[in-house]
């Protein structure tokens, strides 16, 4: 898994490449935490290049959503890969995360 972080004025975009499973989810969580601790309320997860997303990754996403909502923020997903869409739908979380076809549409939504 690779993580790339891009900080804009009002939104941070975290781009993940590869597998998000129990072996890697903690690293993603650490990155997200640092962004939130930095005061960022709007987060976009670009999951276009994620080819595996297990419950460990979903758990990080749900936790992030809960944390951000408490401060009036939100996390959404940009250009999810087919497999990310599958994982979200199998886990019944597809309605929880706003999903945008492109990064720019996600950014423009905030």
């Amino acid at each position, binding site marked *: 898994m690779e993580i790339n972080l891009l900080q804009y004025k009002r939104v941070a975009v975290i781009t993940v490449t590869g*597998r998000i*499973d*129990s*072996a890697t989810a903690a690293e993603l969580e650490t990155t997200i935490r640092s962004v939130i601790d930095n005061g960022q309320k709007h987060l976009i997860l670009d999951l276009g290049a994620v080819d*595996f997303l*297990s*419950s*460990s990754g*979903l*758990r990080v996403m*749900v*936790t992030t*959503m*809960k944390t951000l909502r408490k401060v009036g923020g939100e996390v959404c997903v940009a250009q999810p890969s*087919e*497999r990310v869409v*599958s*994982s979200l739908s*199998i*886990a*019944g*979380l597809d*309605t*929880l995360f706003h999903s945008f076809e492109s990064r720019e549409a996600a950014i423009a939504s905030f």
Partner: protein
Amino acid sequence: MQIRQATFPSRLDQIEAICRLVEESAQEAGFDSAASYACQLAVAEASENIIKHGYGVEGKGIIQVSVTGRADELTFELRDEAPPFNPSLSPTISQLDEDDPPVGGLGLVILHRVMDEVRYERLAGQNHLTLIKRKPVQSR
């Protein structure tokens, strides 16, 4: 179909290799990409649970995975030597509470949503988990 079998140390970094075994079997059985991914996901969830909840600490034991195919279905068998745990009971899958979404418990939900059958036996100090996935009828 060839029987595939392999033994993995109970470490989280082995999940990827376990997925690869599942993927190869699914491909050979003619499962489409979505069905293959669903199987990988379910077997990964079961394996993660064995490592994290069963053995408790990484590297303390082994997971034996075998895959057999018959007609239009694949059977995955996972064996481990951790304390007994029966994941075959379907978790109550409640409607998603958007205001308070569940942070845990997704692994068993995924396992049961994906698999057509989930069977458990404790035999000779081992957990035997049997997961059966039938080939989707309208395979693309």
